[in-house]
């Protein structure tokens, strides 16, 4: 077996930076990852997105070699690294809690790994200088982490990954500990960094805005399994199943239960879905109709659309740039997102309408898209 595993770089892995084959991991009897397969292309920014506890960090730790897998194989840059030490895998990693070495200066933090690898001193200096300039850390090099702000700490943590000169970066919720404003800024910095470096990046988050804005592709995980792996746009517009549909989007997609008969959906409202882009041959039966709050039009704009209804406004949430209106269709709460300029009051009646092209339909039993 050892022979087989020690094979030369494989042609089938060309262009694939990280490849995960049939990876399983269990803590005792609890299976956390189950037969997971994933290929990350070279230079790709892949985001692992999912609710807390779905196994994102565990998967990332497996890739990094910090958590031995129960079963399966991991290839990085064409090498089988399933049993390699973390430092030998050609990865850099950034953690949510920064994990800076508190008693070392910023410079010490950046150079620790290189010193361990016995990189020559001038090479270390060169790499630190480069990382520091990329991340604007120059004025901080002599400080200790305690004397840095959250954003600065995270930049140092990224720098620590950067100096390792590796092909693959792993991020585990790097921005979660920062406040909203800083998070938005660092997000853009990260995006720029990726554009400049072109490395493969695997990024764990449970913040969908981060996922949507950063990712080339998003893998949505649930219970240790990947639910959908696609571009942000695809995931947003064509969620593969009910879980993804409900998970992505804030406010989330409105989901109306009902029956599909031919092209007619009977539920809290009756809708002719002609024009919907079916994935499979449509079958009649229990179905769920999903429509994003921002795809619902109101007032005059609604009148022109094929699917229409009237609803009473229950709660109005002004959010500045836009306003979220809570109504109800039948018993199902129904959210509508309006422009911030629109004025609606609680208790008023609202005409709403939407286009079949912008909705999603799911099989109620299998929960998958139809």
């Amino acid at each position, binding site marked *: 077996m*050892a022979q087989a595993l*020690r094979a030369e770089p494989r042609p089938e892995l060309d262009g694939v930076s990280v490849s995960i084959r049939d990876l399983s991991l269990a803590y005792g009897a609890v299976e956390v990852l189950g037969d997971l397969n994933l290929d990350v292309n070279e230079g790709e920014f892949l985001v692992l997105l999912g609710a807390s506890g779905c196994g994102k960090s565990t998967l990332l730790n497996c890739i990094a070699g910090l958590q031995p897998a129960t079963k399966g194989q991991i290839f990085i840059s064409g*090498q089988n690294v399933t049993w390699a030490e973390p430092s030998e895998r050609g990865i850099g990693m950034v953690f949510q809690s920064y994990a800076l070495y508190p008693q070392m200066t910023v410079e010490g933090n950046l150079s620790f790994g290189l010193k361990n690898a016995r990189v020559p001193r001038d090479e270390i200096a060169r790499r630190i200088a480069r990382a520091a300039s990329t991340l604007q850390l120059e004025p901080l090099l002599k400080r200790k982490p305690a004397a840095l702000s959250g954003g600065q700490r995270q930049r140092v943590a990224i720098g620590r990954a950067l100096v390792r000169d590796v092909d693959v970066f792993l991020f585990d919720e790097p921005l979660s500990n920062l406040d909203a404003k800083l998070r938005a800024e660092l997000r853009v910095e990260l995006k720029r960094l990726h554009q400049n470096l072109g490395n493969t990046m695997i990024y764990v988050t449970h913040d969908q805005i981060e996922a949507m804005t950063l990712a080339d592709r998003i893998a949505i995980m649930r219970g240790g399994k990947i639910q959908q792996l696609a571009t942000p746009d695809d995931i947003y517009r064509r969620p593969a199943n009910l879980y993804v549909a409900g998970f992505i989007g804030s406010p989330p997609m409105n989901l109306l239960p009902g029956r599909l008969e031919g092209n007619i959906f009977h539920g809290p409202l009756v809708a002719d879905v002609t024009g919907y882009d079916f994935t499979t041959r449509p079958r009649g039966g229990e179905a769920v109709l999903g429509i994003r709050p921002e795809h619902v039009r109101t007032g005059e704009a609604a009148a022109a659309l094929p699917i229409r209804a009237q609803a009473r406004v229950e709660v109005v949430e002004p959010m500045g740039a836009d306003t979220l209106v809570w109504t109800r269709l039948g018993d199902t709460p129904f959210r509508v997102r309006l422009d911030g300029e629109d004025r609606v009051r609680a208790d008023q009646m609202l005409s709403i309408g939407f286009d079949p092209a912008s909705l999603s339909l799911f099989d109620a039993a299998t929960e998958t898209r139809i």
Partner: protein
Amino acid sequence: MPGPLRAGSFPLTGGTLMARSGPPIRLLQNWPAKLAAAPMILTALVVFIGCSLWTVVHSFTNSRLLPRLDFVGLAQYERLWSTPRWQVSIENLAIYGICALVLTLAIGFLLAVLLDQKIRFEDGFRTIILFPYALSFIVTGVVWQWILNPDFGLQHIVRGMGFSGFSFDPLNDPNLVILALLAAGIWQGAGLTTVIMLAGLRGIDEDVWKASRVDGIPAWKTYLFIILPMMKPVFATCVVLISAGIIKLYDLVVALTRGGPGIASEVPAKYVYDYMFGNQNLGQGFAASTMMLAAVLAIIIPFALFRMGRKRHV
């Protein structure tokens, strides 16, 4: 290319990416950790398990001055349990143990609460309460012997104040001698408990206090009904520390009372010691220590199982 075994045992060798290409060997996985933990493993196996087993085995022999594998069955145990001194020792340990545990916890908690009231000189008070912990039992014994000395100490003073009928001589009164042990034991040990409890109190979410103030709950009730139950883990730590000390109670007795008057303050550890060395009946001493060991296991195993079980279920 190194063979799989060497590659497994030296994970840091080889090229950056070609270090290890076969599955590692089980026993050699994590080897530096295992090597570093060797002292612990040896201690656990050789000293704690090995010595305990050695003792248990020899408790079935009639070893006298030197250990001998001359088995006599349960004879030592039969004799042990028919010895009044052993019974007294067990009784004393039970009484002392329960009182010391309860009082130390109660005093520790009370003092921690008092210290937690944003008082001035907190450091000073805390140091005063903690300092006896720095002293050895020999010292503690000598001091309390002196304070409780009927001719010079407390009794003498109180009598000197005009209460000539006053009599308090716990060191020579078989019924009160436990009190002397408790006074000295708690004097020495409650400080650490206080410090741990204080740390526990400080670790409690401020908001709980605020909530109870908004609810109009008096401070003492908050402590009793809300804070106290929240301190369960801290109490557990204290109970472990205190009871480990109680079971081993020996030095204090020797220094303070020598088990007297008569055999009124004998404890099991002293029985073990005296029989093993004073009376040169190792077998009997081993039987007594095996009983102590059994008692410890009887207390700890359910506790450990309970904790493990809880961890698994969460």
